[in-house]
């Protein structure tokens, strides 16, 4: 049924499916907001399905298809087996994440989001900011998108100052909502010397922020937090150094237009620095000179003169961290 969709008139509604409520200043919220924005832009009906959890979303997908969704965005890596199956079954185009090889013309497209370029910049920023010479990475789990950013961040740090230590810690399996765990682990990382924390994790990242706000660095000074995906400025208490912002509007926008041109499913989508779909949050705490340096670096990356490889394998990520070098040596 995709030829039927090849003119704008047939596009009726966009559905987006997210595992948690779209109010987390992070992955879910960015996804829902972006889809809403695009729907408005094209005057399409918007069908959000939030808080579906990580269980079986096939019933919801089928129902959305029945209700006339023209595009179903499965905004969770957990949905990328179900999505294509239902696309085949119902003929309704589906977008999934983290599966570049999974494209099916007219039916399935993929958007693999990685802010690794941005994370690289964040790493540089961290290296410039740290007083103690140690920075920390705390993640709630080890999904590819987290991994590639952790790796890029580490590379950024090393690029800026080779001597800076990088402390890496995973809270635990399925610890996405484990705020207490986030805080506990972050506190340990801070007391291991880190005074800049690069934190990735949904509910648990609030625990990390809590730790950053309530724990002194080993030098007695303030600890900074670098966030990902969302913009928590509204709820910041003065520790939010920056954030690697992800903007999915360009991605969804491109999907819809491809859908109209009948080229849907012929290419995957990324976010990147070039169109600011990945960018660093400019907080007042970042000194101007450093910010300018970062922006230059950004341009170099865009121009390709600096390239950041995209490492998504957990083991490879750990290999980049200071502690492991010491271990091997």
């Amino acid at each position, binding site marked *: 049924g995709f030829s039927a969709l090849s003119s704008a008139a047939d596009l009726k509604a966009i559905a987006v499916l997210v595992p948690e*409520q779209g109010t987390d200043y992070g992955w879910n919220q960015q996804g829902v907001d972006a889809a809403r924005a695009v729907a408005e832009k094209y005057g399409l009906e918007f069908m959000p399905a939030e808080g579906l959890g990580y269980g079986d979303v096939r019933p919801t997908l089928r129902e959305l298809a029945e209700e006339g969704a023209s595009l179903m965005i499965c905004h969770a890596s957990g949905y990328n087996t179900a999505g294509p199956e239902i696309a085949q079954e119902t003929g309704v185009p589906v977008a999934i994440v983290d599966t570049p090889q999974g494209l099916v013309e007219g039916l399935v497209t993929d958007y693999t989001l990685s802010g690794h370029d941005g994370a690289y910049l964040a790493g540089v920023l961290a290296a410039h900011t740290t007083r103690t010479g140690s920075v920390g990475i705390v993640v709630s789990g080890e999904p590819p998108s987290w991994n590639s950013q952790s790796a890029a961040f580490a590379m950024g740090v090393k690029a800026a100052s080779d001597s800076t230590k990088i402390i890496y810690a995973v809270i*635990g399996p399925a610890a996405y909502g484990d705020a*207490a765990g986030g805080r506990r682990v972050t506190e340990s990382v801070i007391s291991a010397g880190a005074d800049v924390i690069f934190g990735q994790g949904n509910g648990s990242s609030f625990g990390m922020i*809590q730790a950053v706000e309530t724990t002194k660095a080993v030098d007695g000074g303030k600890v900074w937090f670098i966030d990902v995906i969302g913009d928590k400025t509204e709820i910041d208490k003065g520790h939010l150094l920056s954030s690697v912002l992800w903007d999915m509007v360009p991605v969804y926008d491109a999907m819809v237009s491809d859908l109209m041109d009948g080229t849907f499913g012929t290419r995957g989508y990324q976010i990147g620095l070039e169109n600011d779909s990945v960018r660093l949050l400019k907080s007042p705490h970042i000194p101007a000179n450093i910010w300018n340096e970062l922006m230059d670096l950004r341009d170099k990356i865009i121009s390709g003169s600096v390239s950041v490889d995209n490492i998504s394998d957990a083991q490879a990520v750990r290999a980049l961290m200071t*502690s492991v070098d010491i*271990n091997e040596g």
Partner: protein
Amino acid sequence: MSELLTETFVTALLFGSVTAGVPLLLAGIGEQISEKSGVLNIGLEGMMLVGAYTGFCAAYYFDSFWLGFLFGGLGGVSVAMLMVLFCVILGLNQIVIGIALTLGADGLTALLHHFQFSRTYPRLSAVEPLVIPVVGDIPYLGEVFFHRHPVVYLAVGLVFFLVWLFKRTYVGLNLQAAGDVPAALDVTGVSVRSTRTWAVLATGFLAGVGGAFLANIGAGIFVPHMIHGAGFIGIVLAMLARGHPTWVLYGAALFGVSLSLTTALQVAGFNIPTDVVQMLPFTMVIVMLILLGRNSYLPAALALPYIRGER
């Protein structure tokens, strides 16, 4: 790694273990009380969740950790009251009600959070520890154990209070009889109903305080589903402890340590998947059970409602 494992770091790790252990301890000894009296309280997780929510609200709005714990306890008690009504007074199936309460509490607190906090995510400030003079200066341990909110000292004290209560008081006798042969207690003129009622309420209070501790001191924030199975671990600890409060203490310590062991290994750079480390405590316990193979004492009337004169 050697340079990473500084005193501050090790201290922080142990500090974290204690912080993680205290909620388990509170919930565990709480559960132990109601189990002694013959009520199997599967709703522990729910009581902790509600305690975490109410405790956080109180601590946040009244800006007082003490009030936080108080209301956390009361939150737990409010769930416990349902348990009392359904299981002690009406004699409904304890496992059904326990699970129902846990599911309901999970949904309700998440719902409340959604409408109340999901735009602002309020967070508490750091807690002011009560530093115990002398012992507080011991390297490592001093900070880990004696730079704490008083509630931690109370929790540990409670363990030994319970040891005394169980062995040396009528309440202890009554609890044991109520869990063993309720009728035998009943015919001596002590109401099984109020024995079990008080026991369950006590459980609710302790679980609630445990939840509040997790939210206010553990996380400093409330997020949905934040108890994360701690309640069920508490149930297991209570049962393994076979009526000894001190064993719950050891159990809670074991879990606390294993949690920060995960972090320690990672920070130290050992490439062990977190899942493996997570398995350790339970695996240890199972192995211990197989080796020691002591049959676990559980009250004979555990999970059985008592209806007077029933044959």
